[in-house]
């Protein structure tokens, strides 16, 4: 008897599923669901219906006389069947033998962050993402399993197979999945450049599996602000502090009185600033072709500087795949992006807007209101014709009488900053996949990564101080061009025989990186204003140009073999040979092998049933491999060439004082220069409990970076610089834990928790015998604040160790006598400086390790909850065990303002405190000591998000597949004991030796956002 059975197929969120195949078991008859998820089929009353849909678990239902059968399909969350992308191929997750972390599109769906690299923060163990600053568009630095190198430790980025210089051009909406190859065995297939880990990004493409099309649009608007962070001294505190510290030129009583609380420069500088983002994705496909078109727009204004710190990004993506013949697939992944940035100087203790806001005294007003009497020093400056800066209303900006030097009125500084950068970037590749015989596939692909960056800046006439002024209209334009191409060919063979299965891959790659630039500077243009600020409008004699090009090539051959027996015993091996033009002839080739193995213990017959009930999955794995890094070797670094760069002297003719050019070797040669090699051992285990609802992953690793490339240090008497040497070994080791729990997905209230924790240790284990310590970054004038030396952590903080505060003269006298010191004359209230080198002086020879910028642990925790249409996300992230050095207090600028706690916590007399010094503005024994080093531990709630997805019934009436609204608080709550602006301050990736020094960084703003995501 045939019945007509009707019903509806929905997904876990009760949304209708379109195109689900509904078939009768044992028959070829079938149908599929319509756009509302409904179906109707004629079926024998004793038959069985099978519901099949890609990505979901198939469901069978016996008809048993019913005429209405509705089903809810569950997504196929058998995680172990998922594939992960590995270099030059994919692997079933269950067969992976290395340490690979995956972040999928759905993890990023809720992100309110504009950059994919930032979105990786806290998502996975062993990956540290440090924002370099909170300013719009500023880059982040990513460290995988600690800093291996002491210069550039950025990982290698591979986007759809193409090596790219960075991933800042990707909008999170473009990403299908991100794989992070952490262990050497996984990364070894990228040989010479994989030492700092590899980030593989796969962008979204249209689906070819079924006739579908969809339009996704998301919109987000946010408001950024700065919380109440690090108060500075007010007018009274400032004046009293200077007075107590013996500074001479104090504000008068009248000035202090008139100022009241005084100017809060921080409030004056920071304001709320908007951010918005739109992303539109159109995709679809049929059996033969699929396409995806993506567009996005992002704009962020700065909380300091507004329009002068603005970041705009447009991206366009076109991905298609086409089956031309049964044996031939071709397609492309193509991305164009455009960035427009205006920027302010920051992260410098010398000339930045932020450091001026930190340093300027509270007595000086932001502006002198019209009609008020200008102070004498301002009228004097005006009388001598100096170009003082006015605000929009025509009022002169406040000019400090007390704090000068490089500092200036921060709002005035913003007004005179005229810098813009426009970048056009194209990244993409075209590919062809050819099926030669069954199991053997050949891929060829050609990709480019091209970026064209134009920077334009000019400076109007202005005067803040004798040092911070501009008396000539001047400007500069720079065009930097990168054009890199890569051509790769590889073949993959897969074969299963009986319980054995074998995969093999072999191929080659050629990569060429071209860079050229043209920089110009010009001055004395005809009138002040943007439209005159070009070289054509300045005298030809004032035009200068500079330019450069360089080219480097990398040739590679690689192969990989994988074997498994019943998916139970797993073995992988790979090797890559790389040749680089950056090294001297004869030293160009390097070889990078790796092996790894795994054992799925739970698949063994002897695995006890009783255990399997609870712990259903157990895998043990181990890997070893070697990688290289060339990032710190420039073109021709090894060679000692003769160059005229920078060598000129003025002649002695007063009538015609021209420069005479000279030429000399620019550096010492180092033909033995070789790869930085990273060797890594990884032992890991994976456990699934209760049908994988709890999944635990544990890894232990030891990563040794050998022949570390360091700036060469040779004795000065050798007579020239050694640019880069293979300086030593750095060892990172640690533990990584990842734990996920998902609640029963059939209940209305669902939740999941996932957390990760990394413990790491870092130290220098070997130094080039030519070297002892290497000086790192300096602070102010003449203080080396970071150092690199044997058995110490990478770029540790260097300075005076203190042991409390001298309370009285008797204590001082005793200390001097006990240590037999000469020439040391502290006052009560000064810190007790430890005589580290045991000589008879307290001097910079007593500098020792006073802090470690490297964290001991990092963690992330994500909580997801949903109930009916509502969803909630909490994502927090943190780290601990690292130190931050407060580096914006300059002793050579004694009258600069200071954080309020300098005043509140200060020593005020015998017995008042033993932890903070008496008022003091210029003592190196304080400002180069551990008193400036703070614990950098923090926990930040990156995101709190609440969303609502409208019921499909309601939406179906307006032809909308889904609609979700949400609001989110980003970076709103930070828990830290660091007393500066931002515990993440000073993570400048361009100078690894400066990590952890807070030079007055642009703090990470907090943000409130609202948005919607709609699918048609």
């Amino acid at each position: 008897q045939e019945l007509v059975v009707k019903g509806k197929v929905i997904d876990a969120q009760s949304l209708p599923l379109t195109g689900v195949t509904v078939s009768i078991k044992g028959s070829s008859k079938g149908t599929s669901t319509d756009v509302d998820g409904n179906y109707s089929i004629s079926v024998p009353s004793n038959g069985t219906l099978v519901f099949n849909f890609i990505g979901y678990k198939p469901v069978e239902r016996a008809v048993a006389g019913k005429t209405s059968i509705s089903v809810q399909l569950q997504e196929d969350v058998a995680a172990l069947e998922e594939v992960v992308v590995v270099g030059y191929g994919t692997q079933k997750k269950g067969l992976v033998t290395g340490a690979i972390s995956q972040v999928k599109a759905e993890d990023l769906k809720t992100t309110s962050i504009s950059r994919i690299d930032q979105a990786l923060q806290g998502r996975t163990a062993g990956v540290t993402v440090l924002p370099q600053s909170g300013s719009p568009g500023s880059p982040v630095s990513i460290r995988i399993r600690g800093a291996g190198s002491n210069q550039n430790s950025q990982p290698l980025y591979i986007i759809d197979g193409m090596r790219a210089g960075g991933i800042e051009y990707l909008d999170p909406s473009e990403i299908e999945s991100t794989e992070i190859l952490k262990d050497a065995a996984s990364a070894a297939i990228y040989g010479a450049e994989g030492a700092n880990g590899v980030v593989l990004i796969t962008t979204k493409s249209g689906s070819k599996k079924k006739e579908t099309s969809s339009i996704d649009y998301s919109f987000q608007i946010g408001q950024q602000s700065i919380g109440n962070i690090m108060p500075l001294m007010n007018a009274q505190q400032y004046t009293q502090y200077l007075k107590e510290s013996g500074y001479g030129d104090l504000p008068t009583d009248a000035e202090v009185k008139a100022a009241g609380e005084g100017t809060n420069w921080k409030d004056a500088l920071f304001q709320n600033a908007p951010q918005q983002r739109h992303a539109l994705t159109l995709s679809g496909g049929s059996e033969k072709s699929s396409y995806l078109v993506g567009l996005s727009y992002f704009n962020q204004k700065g909380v300091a500087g507004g329009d002068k710190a603005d970041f705009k990004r447009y991206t366009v993506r076109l991905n298609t795949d086409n089956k031309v013949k049964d044996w031939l697939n071709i397609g492309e992944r193509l991305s164009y992006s455009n960035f427009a940035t205006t920027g302010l100087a920051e992260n410098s203790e010398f000339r930045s807007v932020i450091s001026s806001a930190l340093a300027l005294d509270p007595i000086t007003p932001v502006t002198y209101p019209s009609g008020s009497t200008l102070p004498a020093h301002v009228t004097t400056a005006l009388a001598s014709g100096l170009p003082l800066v006015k605000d929009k209303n025509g009022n002169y900006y406040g000019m400090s009488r007390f704090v000068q030097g490089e500092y200036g009125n921060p709002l005035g500084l913003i007004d005179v900053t005229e810098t813009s950068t426009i970048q056009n970037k194209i990244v993409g590749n075209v590919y062809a996949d050819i099926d030669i015989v069954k199991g053997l596939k050949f891929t060829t692909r050609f990709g480019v990564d091209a970026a064209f960056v134009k920077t334009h800046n000019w400076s109007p006439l202005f005067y803040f101080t004798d040092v911070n002024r501009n008396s000539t209209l001047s400007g500069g334009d720079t065009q930097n061009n990168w054009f890199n191409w890569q051509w790769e060919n590889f073949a993959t063979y897969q074969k299963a025989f009986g319980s054995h299965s074998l995969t093999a891959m072999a191929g080659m790659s050629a990569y060429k990186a071209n860079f050229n630039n043209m920089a110009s500077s010009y001055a004395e243009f005809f009138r002040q204003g943007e439209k005159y600020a070009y070289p054509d409008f300045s005298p030809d004699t004032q035009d200068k140009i500079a330019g450069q090009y360089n080219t480097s090539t990398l040739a590679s051959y690689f192969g990989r073999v994988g074997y498994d027996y019943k998916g139970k015993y797993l073995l992988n091996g790979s090797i890559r040979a790389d040749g680089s033009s950056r090294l001297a002839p004869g030293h160009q080739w390097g070889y990078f092998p790796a092996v790894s193995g795994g054992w799925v213990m739970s698949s063994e017959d002897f695995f006890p049933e009783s255990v399997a009930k609870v712990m259903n999955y157990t895998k043990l794995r181990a890997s070893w491999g070697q990688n290289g890094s060339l990032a710190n070797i420039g073109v021709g670094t090894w060679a000692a060439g003769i160059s005229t760069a920078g060598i000129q002297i003025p002649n002695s003719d007063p009538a015609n004082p021209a420069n005479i050019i000279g030429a000399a070797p620019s550096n010492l040669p180092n033909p033995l220069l070789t790869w930085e090699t990273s060797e890594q051992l990884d032992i890991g285990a994976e456990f699934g409990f209760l049908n994988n609802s709890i999944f635990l992953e544990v890894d232990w690793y030891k990563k040794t970076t050998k022949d570390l490339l360091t700036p060469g240090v040779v004795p000065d008497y050798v007579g020239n610089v050694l640019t880069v040497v293979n300086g030593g070994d750095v060892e990172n080791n640690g533990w990584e834990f990842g734990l996920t729990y998902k609640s029963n997905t059939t209940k209305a209230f669902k939740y999941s928790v996932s957390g990760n924790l990394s413990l790491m240790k870092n130290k220098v284990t070997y130094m080039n015998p030519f070297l002892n310590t290497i000086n790192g970054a300096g602070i102010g004038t003449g203080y080396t604040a970071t150092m690199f030396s044997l058995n110490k952590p990478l770029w540790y903080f260097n300075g005076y160790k203190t042991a409390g505060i001298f309370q009285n003269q008797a204590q001082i006298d005793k200390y001097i006598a006990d240590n037999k010191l000469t020439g040391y004359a502290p006052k009560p209230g000064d810190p007790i400086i430890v005589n580290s080198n045991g000589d008879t002086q307290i001097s910079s020879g007593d500098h020792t390790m006073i802090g470690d910028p490297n964290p001991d642990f990092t963690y992330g925790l994500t909580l997801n909850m949903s109930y009916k249409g509502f969803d909630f996300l909490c994502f927090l992230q943190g780290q601990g065990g690292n130190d931050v050095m407060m580096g914006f207090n300059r002793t050579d600028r004694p009258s600069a303002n200071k954080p309020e706690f300098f005043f509140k916590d200060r020593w005020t007399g015998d017995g008042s405190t033993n932890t903070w010094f008496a008022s003091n503005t210029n003592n190196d024994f304080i400002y180069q000591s551990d008193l400036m080093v703070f614990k950098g531990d923090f926990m930040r709630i990156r995101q709190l998000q609440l969303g609502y997805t409208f019921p499909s019934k309601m939406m179906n009436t307006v032809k909308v597949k889904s609609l979700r609204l949400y609001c989110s608080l980003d970076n709103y709550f930070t828990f830290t004991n660091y007393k500066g602006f931002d515990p993440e301050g000073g993570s400048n990736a361009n100078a690894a030796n400066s990590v952890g020094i807070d030079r007055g960084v642009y703090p990470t703003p907090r943000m409130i956002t609202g948005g919607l995501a709609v699918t048609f």
Partner: protein
Amino acid sequence: CGKSFLEQDVPGKLPVDEYYKTDADAQLAITAVYDMNSADYFTAWGSRLLIKTMPSDESAAGGSGPGDQPGYQALDKLAQLDPTNGNMEIAWRTMYFTIYRANLVINNVKPETDLRKRIVAEAKALRAYNYLDLVSLWGDVPLILTEVKPEDYKKGVRAPKAEVYAQIEKDLTEAIPDLPLKSAYAVAERYRVSKGAAQALLGKALLYQEKWAAAATQFENVITSKVYGLESSIGATFSTYGEFGKESIFETSFSNAEKYTWGNFPWGNQPESNIHVQLMGPREGSYVKAPTDSLNNGWGFNLPTKKMYDAFEAGDERKKYSVMSLAELKAAGGDFTNQATWDYTGYWQRKYGTFEKATGPGGDSPLNYTTNWRLIRYADVLLMAAEAYYRAGNEGKAQGYLNDVRNRSELGSITPTGNALFLAIVHERQVELAFEGFRYIDLVRWGMAKTELAPYGYVDGKHNVLPIPITDVRTGGLTQNNY
């Protein structure tokens, strides 16, 4: 993708073995030696002039506080002077970098033409000039005459002073015949080492070794060459007019040709202007210049001591060209508002002054001082000659040269004898050569440092030489002085 794919050019760099071949190459190579020889700011602050001046009793470091240029501060106060001194290390580095470039010229340029012969001689004289600075500031120092091989980078050896002096004498003796008189150089080339400069330098090296008669002979050669003379006043000598003038024997040249602005000044590199002049101007913020004066403000370093100010005799016109007191500043209508600034002495030096005329036009004026360092000038040679003759027993000649120098500055002739004559020479060097970087080395070699410099932190047997910079001890394996 084979070998050729990996062969890529190194842009802009000529392989070393294709260089030093022609006259043009030799010109470029010797210019590079002069370039480094004049690098008082080389990647960082490290003025040879200040390294030599700070330990003396002429001036205090100054600046904004003890954290401002801590290296110069420690060289001034001496108690904190130690091998980690950054400013001192830069000065040491520029000397050896100059020697490295000179060695390449001497060892690679074949003296086959007159020009190349002269250039090799210039290189030898420049090498000697640097070794004389090294040996007089640090004592025994590594004597590097060829390129150091990588395997020897950490095997540094300090040659005994006598060996260093022997090399200085050898280089100069070889150079003198091949060097032209200063007058034979075109005006634009007078920054080059001349025969007179090499003779004066040789005389100085002999004087420092107390080879009195031989020293006197060399100074006499300079004097009788008739190429040099004294300017009308020391003010003229140190004005822009006096640069490469008749009193100039050897001088390093700075220019404003780059018209630096705050936006493009090559911090961390090697500017062509003399930024140390700006460093030595009266401290901005407090200094109010007198209406008719052209001494701009600066960063307040190198503040003269009262002892220096008081050393000038009444009527010595050098005083007004060398030092200015607060009273004089106020009398002229200027002021200095914050007398609690660090190291405040109440005096400012005007010899290498921040004069408006010595900077610009174009660019930001603090960054474009053109003031040349007078490394050897005729008055110094006259006084060294006086000293050498006195020691050699010819008091008449000594008095004559001493009085030549006094008379120029409106002071009458004097005729002391015996030790009084010596003390007169000591005094004359103090006031004539104030702030020119000679006083500390002179006091040490005369054995007078332990008395004269004691109030300034000088410890005998220690501060008679500077500490060897820490890098060269650590990575180069050099032994340390008494620090």
